């Protein structure tokens, strides 16, 4: 039996800064996972991935990452995506210094 599809977000790194970014419903990129588009249908996810990949002038390394619906938008289900969302644990660098802490 094929594995059931679990919800995903589209993520990548920004071309110039390397920052972790997420694809939004508006075909744009955000630095906040909570603002990402949560994809719950597999066929839809594949199409959205193609749209996102077409923006090669803005991002690199586009892929689908597992996520789940949270109170304030998508949340990570695996610790790797949690670290990507947050920034490194040894310094308040990357996202942590650019954005106020989010709930």
């Amino acid at each position, binding site marked *: 039996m094929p594995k059931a599809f679990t919800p995903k977000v589209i993520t990548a*790194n920004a*071309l*110039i*800064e*390397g*920052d*972790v970014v997420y694809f939004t419903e508006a075909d744009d990129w955000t630095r906040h996972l909570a603002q990402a588009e949560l994809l719950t249908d597999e066929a839809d996810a594949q199409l959205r991935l193609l749209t996102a990949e077409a923006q*090669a*002038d803005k991002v*690199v*390394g586009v892929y689908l990452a597992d996520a789940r619906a949270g109170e304030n938008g998508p949340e990570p*289900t*695996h*610790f*790797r995506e949690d*670290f*990507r969302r947050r*920034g*490194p*644990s*040894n*310094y308040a*660098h*990357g*996202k942590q210094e650019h954005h106020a802490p989010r709930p």
Partner: protein
Amino acid sequence: MYDYTDFDAAFVAERNRQFRAQVERRIDGSLTEDEFKPLRLMNGLYLQLHAYMLRVAIPYGTLNSRQMRQLAYLAERWDKGYGHFTTRQNIQYNWPRLRDVPDMLDALAEVGMHAIQTSGNTIRNVTADHFAGAAADEVADPRPVAELLRQWSTDHPEFQFLPRKFKIAVTGSETDRAVIKAHDIGLQVVERAGQIGYRVLVGGGLGRTPMIGKVLNDFVRQEDLLPYIESVVSVWNLLGRRDNKFKSRIKITVHEHGIEEISRRVDAHFARIRPTFSGIDTALFERIKAAFAPPAFREASTGVFETARRTDPIFRAWSDTNLAPHRAPGYAIVQISLKAHGATPGDATAEQMRVMADLAERYGHDELRISHEQNVILPHVHKSDLPAIHASLKKHGLATANIGLVSDIIACPGMDYCALATARSIPVAQGIATRFEELKLEHDVGPLKIKISGCINACGHHHVGHIGILGLDRAGVENYQITLGGSGAEDATLGDRTGPGFAYDEIVPAIERIIRAYLAHRESRDETFLEAYRRLGLAPFKAALYEEAQVHAAE
């Protein structure tokens, strides 16, 4: 110190000019990422978890103060004010912006530095004993031969597309501070009947399939070295498994064909190519050697040093752990710890880099070294200058007296930075160091090397740690596996796995239990952790590790 020639400078300038154009074409869309990636990797530029990473080579770990200041400048101007020194005598910048990297490379070129062959399937930065040219136990300075190998391997047309990366390390002493047995080729300078030559080891390496190098040739004469090494790499280039990335390193080739067969093939290849080496390499070697002539050591009283040791306990503790014997009378080798308790192993701020550069210039014959243990060395310091040096280090958070102790941990970047990681390593290192600082136990514990990697690639050398920690992903949570009894020195051994791994919040207490078991079982304070482990074996440590865990589980 060795100065690069005009040829070297022109070569690097040309490479940088090409790369600048490539970056522009990536940004304006005329190069795709697939086209651009190999080009950026050729220039040491990776894409990591949160940003790009630029890896800069520090050949054989040697720097002068001007170069160190330039590294500080890069950190401040284009990064976040710090740099990360690695186990391969490189510095990594964790936050450059793609468009700034060409400027960074140009700034490096101003001081004869670059990022060439810090990535890709080529011969990487040749590393050496960080005490080279200074150590009391040295047969000869290993850096001239490292420099010869650097010149020979840089842009060597036959060796740009090897089956995999290739790493060479050189030591000039019997005591191995360069981990030569965990390298593709390890070289040891030896003297036989008044003649200098090389013991050549092959097939060591860590990663997924760790192996200790084997002796391929017990004595290769200086004039035969380059053709001999070229033969080894050529034989592997032909035999190496390009079909399977996990079997591509020379350690697997040696394992699959046997050392005798490799030796036979190397000898045959050597016999063929030896006549094509005209002797220019030997003449070049003599010129390089002259450039590494030792500085003019001075003679002076060491009275200030003795007095400081008698009167200042903090200075005394520091000089007990952070100094090493120098070959010249009245001199010492200073090891500057980049492992302040709770800090990120290997990181130095721009300000700290400048402080170390100033000290090298003022007191250290303008020389600095980066150790594979992620510390900085002032190789030539007169003992009378040590109190002043210590005072300055103290002011800048660089006087931690912990070289070789529990908190002097090697840790790879792990999942805080590295795209390949399966778990974090930095916070584990920080946690252990902080815990032992609280316990005030580390001086009592004595020499103990803890090494941590965030994945099976083993960049943090965990297999050869007295205590090794490997971070894994077990069903979506961080899990840490422990090995005991490894060594990366001349008695190199791979550590033994203790058993099931530990969760993130269990790993620091687990390490503490191992160390407490050592304290309980050692014969005397003179028996080191490694000696005790070799005498006792795994059993008592395993008992300490898991019995308690079971008790907790039962509660």
